[in-house]
């Protein structure tokens, strides 16, 4: 007896063993179909006696095991059902021959046998034979179950007669000695007449009768017999059989206590369908006892000693004690290893029912050490698997996983010529729960790591290896990705390197993706997104650049006050307690324009990480993601990455996450699944498309930044009074027509008083080109005039004023001139002393604002703003240091004497109306006399009383002065120009 039956359980002791075998060639599927039908007759209630007979079917049973039938009768093959196909009638004798041959194998123990013949027709089939049944085909055999029941009844009759025969055989004159195969030679030449020997014979026979009673459904009788056997055998130190008697006692008690069975769900006895409905009910402990008593009285004349029935039965605690004892007796015999192992398994099942896991584990521990001699690899696998199952049964999941893993490793042991990687992989998968591993990365994304990382990692490595050897690189990639993703914190730098290297090797053959892998047995492997390669710390949606931001026309009343509350402030705030990420961000993206999302990422790996094809995952509107590739240095700090894309339709867009491709594995990382990601909201409105305007100017760009929001700034350096023409070219670089264009200007941050218009333009010319189609351009001329008051610079004036007469500086003239190069270059670096003081530069800054709109965005009421900063450095030009008058020859005229100072480093010519030019060298002061008509300020129009009333006196004064200035200007028409500039377009204009 070398092959243990690991599925045995205590109640198997009350079954009779029937072997079902094919004879000749029977298709396997047909055989098992019939086998299943036969096996459904697992309990038969015997007519007249109300007893139940349990049958255990095997389609494969070693005759070697059959030899232990005397030791424990449930190991004895008592019935044989052969299944055969038989075509033509002439084959029949041959088939019958084979059937007899098969019967021979078990002949020593067989009570009865049947042959089921399929396919044979003709006169042979007409014969009525009890041991042979003929069926025309595998389909047409409705009474198989009935046949089997009849067969079982015939077995029962034999069993019952044997039982009675043995039980009543009390004469004692010649009880044969029952023995197990390995004992036979031990008893050769033994004195058969000794008291000792006789007692041994008696004890063994008692035990045997107990077995038979148990099988025949007479539980109480069996208990009595077992008790007697124990006493007898204990006296003669027949340990092996004592063990068997004790085990029998245990089995009977277990059957009594746990009628539901100990084998668990799979092998549990269910009332078979063919049984009458009340068959199941009969099997209850109380009833059972009564039944047992009744039948004992009715049939058995013996077992007269009516000891209290319940007393014979062991208590649950005793069962375990007795099992222990029995196993210790079995342990004395090396050849009884299988019996011992099976006893252990049975005891464990009982303990599992009793929920005494720790004691069960002791039995199992013992079972591990039972040496069954040389086991084949397959047997080893079976053994480990069953150990694992039993550990699972008692709730020792880790131990169970351990043994399952050992079994898995056994499948691919180097000694096996054809390693079963598939089986190994399947077993390994089953160990996962024991190591608190699931293959869903979501379980690991929250909180601390679950389970024992060191062993989990090992298991994952084995899964990877097994799946690779199975020839399924897709699985390897999935497992390896999982390993990398979930165990990253536990991998050493060296291991990280190794894992990624092998991952890259695998993905070169089979790229990893986001699809769910379904295994043949239905297990689904969810995708593993690499959310840790790289780790994303924050996600921020970026607004469009200032020049492209859409603005809403604030036409409708209360558009900004659209909140539900009528109060400006209320302590009861309508908190939107929704998820932060769902909050809408208060800027808009524009359809068709590139939008940006900034991620702060870092690389946890000890080497450079190449992330390819990194893009955004969005929902809500059609979005064209423009993927980026990046390379992160080893263990980088936070690293900003900007992902861009273009929304193709309008609506609300939600940024759900991002996708990457790392080591050949593409992953879709959803933000909601990421821990520790800061986000200020991921929902943004996309408005319909708007045109885009590009601006270029005739003046050089400057680095000056007036305000941050400006798209560009031009700068120019001018002398006071100069006028500069600025040509602005506006080009529509978008895809929509520009339908409206507005231009406004604003002077910013200057305390200087500006005379006249700083910036002036004619928009009509440009507007006439509207609508501006994509790609078209329009030009616009803006003239820059600088007229500033430099008189405030006292240091300058003090130097110049000989006679202390100060002149309020008036903007005198304005030469028009194209500036060719920045003025600063022409300035001598080391100017003469004193000069520098005079060249105080004042700055004037203004912003030109273009509002434009068009396309679908205009319909929605949006427009865009493009702004151009104008930065002007104003240098002082001509100073009038002294003004005095002299009477002229005509009384209506007078001579105006002007002391003119040239603070520049250039030669100047100053001209006035009807006067010759005056050449002024750098830093030169000269007097100029102009003959002018006298005029009266009183003739100037007075501001009307209405306005005067509402403006303060100072303003009035200013206004008057301004008016006077204009008057003087127009009379004098003083102009200046700088000679040294080549392009001497110093055309003089009258003012």
């Amino acid at each position, binding site marked *: 007896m070398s092959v243990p039956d690991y599925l045995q359980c205590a109640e198997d002791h009350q079954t009779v063993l029937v072997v079902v075998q094919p004879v000749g060639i029977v298709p396997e599927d047909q055989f098992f179909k019939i086998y299943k039908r036969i096996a459904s007759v697992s309990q038969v209630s015997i007519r007249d006696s109300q007893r139940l007979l349990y049958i255990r079917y095997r389609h494969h049973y070693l005759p070697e095991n059959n030899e232990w039938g005397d030791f424990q009768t449930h190991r004895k093959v008592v019935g044989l059902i052969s299944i055969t196909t038989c075509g033509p009638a002439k084959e029949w004798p041959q088939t019958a021959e084979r059937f007899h041959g098969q019967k021979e194998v078990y002949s020593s123990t067989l009570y009865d046998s049947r042959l089921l013949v399929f396919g044979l027709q003709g006169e042979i089939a007409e014969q009525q034979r009890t041991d042979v049944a003929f069926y025309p085909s595998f389909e047409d055999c409705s009474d198989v179950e009935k046949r089997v029941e009849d067969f079982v009844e015939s077995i029962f009759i034999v069993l019952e007669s044997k039982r009675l025969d043995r039980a009543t055989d009390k004469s004692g004159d010649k009880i044969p000695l029952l023995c197990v195969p390995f004992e036979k030679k031990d008893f050769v030449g033994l004195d058969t007449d000794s008291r000792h020997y006789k007692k041994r014979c008696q004890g063994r026979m008692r035990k045997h009768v107990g077995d038979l009673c148990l099988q025949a459904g007479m539980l109480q009788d069996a208990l009595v017999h077992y008790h007697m056997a124990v006493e007898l055998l204990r006296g003669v130190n027949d340990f092996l059989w004592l063990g068997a008697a004790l085990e029998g006692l245990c089995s009977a008690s277990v059957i009594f206590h746990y009628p539901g069975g100990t084998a668990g769900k799979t092998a549990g006895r269910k009332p078979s369908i063919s049984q009458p409905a009340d068959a199941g009910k009969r099997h209850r402990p109380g009833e059972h006892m009564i039944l047992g008593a009744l039948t004992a009285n009715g049939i058995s004349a013996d077992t007269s000693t009516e000891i209290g029935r319940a007393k014979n039965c062991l208590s649950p605690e005793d069962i375990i004690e007795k099992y222990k004892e029995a196993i210790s007796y079995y342990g004395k015999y090396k050849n009884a290893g299988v019996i011992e192992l099976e006893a252990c398994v049975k005891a464990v099942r009982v303990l599992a029912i009793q929920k005494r*896991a720790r004691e069960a*584990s*002791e039995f199992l521990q013992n079972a591990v050490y039972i040496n069954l001699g040389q086991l084949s690899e397959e047997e080893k696998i079976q053994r480990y698997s069953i150990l694992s199952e039993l550990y699972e049964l008692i709730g020792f999941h880790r131990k169970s996983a351990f043994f399952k893993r050992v079994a898995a490793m056994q499948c691919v042991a180097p000694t096996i010529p054809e390693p079963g990687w598939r089986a190994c992989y399947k077993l390994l998968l089953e160990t996962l729960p024991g190591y608190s591993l699931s293959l869903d990365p979501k379980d690991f994304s929250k909180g*601390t790591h679950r389970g*024992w990382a*060191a*062993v989990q990692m090992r298991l994952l490595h084995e899964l990877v290896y097994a799946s690779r050897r199975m020839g399924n690189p897709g699985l390897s990639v999935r497992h390896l990705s999982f390993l990398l993703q979930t165990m990253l914190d536990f991998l050493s730098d060296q291991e990280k390197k190794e894992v990624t290297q092998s991952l890259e090797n695998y993905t070169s053959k089979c790229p990893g993706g986001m699809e769910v892998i379904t295994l043949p047995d239905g297990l689904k492997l969810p995708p593993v997104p690499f959310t840790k390669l790289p780790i994303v710390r924050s996600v921020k949606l970026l607004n469009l650049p200032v020049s492209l931001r859409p603005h809403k026309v604030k036409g409708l009343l209360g558009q900004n006050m659209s909140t539900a509350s009528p109060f400006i402030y209320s302590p009861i705030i309508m908190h939107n307690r929704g998820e932060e990420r769902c909050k809408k961000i208060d800027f808009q993206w524009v359809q068709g324009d590139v939008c940006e999302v900034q991620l702060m990422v870092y690389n946890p790996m000890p080497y450079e990480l190449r992330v390819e094809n990194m893009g955004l995952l969005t929902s809500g509107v059609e979005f064209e993601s423009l993927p980026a590739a990046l390379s992160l240095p080893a263990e980088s700090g936070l690293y900003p990455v900007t992902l861009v894309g273009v929304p193709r339709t309008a609506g609300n867009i939600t940024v759900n996450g991002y996708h990457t491709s790392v080591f050949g594995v593409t992953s879709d990382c959803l933000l909601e699944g990421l821990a520790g990601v800061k986000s200020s909201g991921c929902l943004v409105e996309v408005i319909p498309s708007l045109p885009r305007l590009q601006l270029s100017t005739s003046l050089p760009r400057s680095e000056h930044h007036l305000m941050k929001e400006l798209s560009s700034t031009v700068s120019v350096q001018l002398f006071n009074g100069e006028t500069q023409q600025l040509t602005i070219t506006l080009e529509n670089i978008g895809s929509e027509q520009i339908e409206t264009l507005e231009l406004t200007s604003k002077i910013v941050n200057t305390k200087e008083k500006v005379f006249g218009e700083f910036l002036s333009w004619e928009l009509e010319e440009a507007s006439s080109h509207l609508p501006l189609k994509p790609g078209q351009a329009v030009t616009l001329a803006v003239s820059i005039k600088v007229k500033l008051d430099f008189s405030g610079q006292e240091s300058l004036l003090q130097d110049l004023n000989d006679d202390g007469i100060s002149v309020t500086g008036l903007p005198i003239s304005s030469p028009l001139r194209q500036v060719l190069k920045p003025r600063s270059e022409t300035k001598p670096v080391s100017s003469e002393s004193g000069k520098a003081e005079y060249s105080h530069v004042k700055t004037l800054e203004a912003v030109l604002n273009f509002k434009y709109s068009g396309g679908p965005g205009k319909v929605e009421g949006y427009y865009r703003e493009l702004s151009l900063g104008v930065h002007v450095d104003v240098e002082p030009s001509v100073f009038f240091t002294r003004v005095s008058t002299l009477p002229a020859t005509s009384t209506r005229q007078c001579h105006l004497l002007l002391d003119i100072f040239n603070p520049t480093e250039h030669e100047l010519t100053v001209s006035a109306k009807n006067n010759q030019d005056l050449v002024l060298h750098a830093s030169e002061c000269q007097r100029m006399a102009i003959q002018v008509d006298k005029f009266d300020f009183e003739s100037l129009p007075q501001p009307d009383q209405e306005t005067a009333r509402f403006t303060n006196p100072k303003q009035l004064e200013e206004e008057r002065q301004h008016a006077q200035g204009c008057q003087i200007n127009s009379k004098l028409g003083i102009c200046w120009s700088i000679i040294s500039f080549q392009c001497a377009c110093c055309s003089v204009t009258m003012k």
Partner: protein
Amino acid sequence: MNYTSRANNYPLYIRSVPTQNELKFHYTVHTSLDVVEEKISAVGKSLGDQRELYLGLLYPTEDYKVYGYVTNSKVKFVIVVDSSNTSLRDNEIRSMFRKLHNSFTDVMCNPFHNPGDQIQSKAFDGIVSGMMVQTG
């Protein structure tokens, strides 16, 4: 000889001498948790908080003896010793556990220690090393 301490069924601290074949000890300790849990659940029902922290011998294997100890906050300590080491009686093991527990408490008192993280304390290391040297 191998000491580990753990809570919530993932290891907080593992130390073994000799260091080769450490994975084997990982398995040993991991599977011993089945027994620990079984013992706690059995005791927990009957005695409540009057529980004895020392669980005694969890199970003997061929080469090693595995002892267990569980604090009231269910932090588990497991000591695996060579079966051939006869100098270690139950009492010695018990005092080792007590020492370990005290040291663990000190670690937990460190305001910079985040409970649930792996223990990286020099003092704790020292205590464990001391015990390992003592027992050989």
